[in-house]
């Protein structure tokens, strides 16, 4: 194993910022900033909760658009996956996060921050299969 592309300071700073966003979501709205939950329940059309969920997701997308317009190629983005790989991955992420009730934000950040045993187990599970998938891609020459 070798260590490459390690950026500890921007990682810590970015993590602290998104942790602060999750804290504000909790303090202000009384909600867990779990993106798969917000996105998934948006698609279940829970009236009365559509507004804030749509607004949260819009905030995510708007930052992507503005960042690209403002910084262009300076925003690092490298994707080594074809369209079909993305279809399969998207289906797995969509279905899996709903069945498992959370993703990297809901389980990994908020749930672990709340010291929830469920979230600790979930995080270990998705990190394990994430590593397996990357190992498989590497073995298959797809990485």
């Amino acid at each position, binding site marked *: 194993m*070798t260590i490459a592309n*390690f*950026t500890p300071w921007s*990682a810590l700073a970015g993590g602290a*910022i*998104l*942790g*602060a966003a*999750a804290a*504000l979501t*909790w*303090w*202000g709205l*009384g*909600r867990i900033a779990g*993106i798969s939950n917000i*996105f*998934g329940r948006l698609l279940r059309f829970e009236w009365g909760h559509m*507004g804030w969920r749509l607004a*949260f*997701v819009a*905030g995510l997308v*708007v930052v992507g658009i503005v960042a690209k317009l403002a910084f262009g190629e300076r*925003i*690092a*983005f490298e*994707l*080594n996956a074809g*369209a079909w790989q*993305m*279809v*399969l991955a*998207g*289906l*797995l*992420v*969509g279905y*899996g996060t709903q*069945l498992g009730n*959370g993703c*990297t934000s809901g389980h990994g*950040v*908020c749930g672990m*921050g*709340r*010291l929830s*045993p*469920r979230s600790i*187990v*979930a*995080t270990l599970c*998705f990190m394990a*299969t994430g*590593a*397996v*998938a*990357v*190992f498989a*891609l590497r073995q298959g020459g797809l*990485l």
Partner: protein
Amino acid sequence: MNKILFAFACGVLFAIGLVVAQMTNPAKVVGFLDVTGAWDPSLAFVMGGALTVFGFAYWSSQRKAAKPVLDDHFDAPPSRGITWELIAGSLLFGFGWGLSGFCPGPALVSAGFGDVRVWIFVVAMAGGVVAFNLTGSKAR
């Protein structure tokens, strides 16, 4: 209205954190999961930073505030114990995460960067959610 503006601001701040941490770069996420290759430990630091800030806020709010500022109650997820759904779902999610380098948050942010493959991912992710809603929701 306040609630909607506030939620928008939370989404914006969350996304800024993801961009600063470079979690919107799928190669960076794949690098973290590439433990047998060229390993990039950055994502662990993202989680560490986020966990520390959120954990502090959460545990201090548990002691002080009775309710959030803009709602009438804190909506903490109910604890259902460690179920097969939790484990199976997380295992499936992780595989998709590794295949693409995307989890839901970063995918929605980098959808704004304009690469069509990210839009394909987001549409497929919505498809996975709908598939769950149609078939798996009884299992909850």
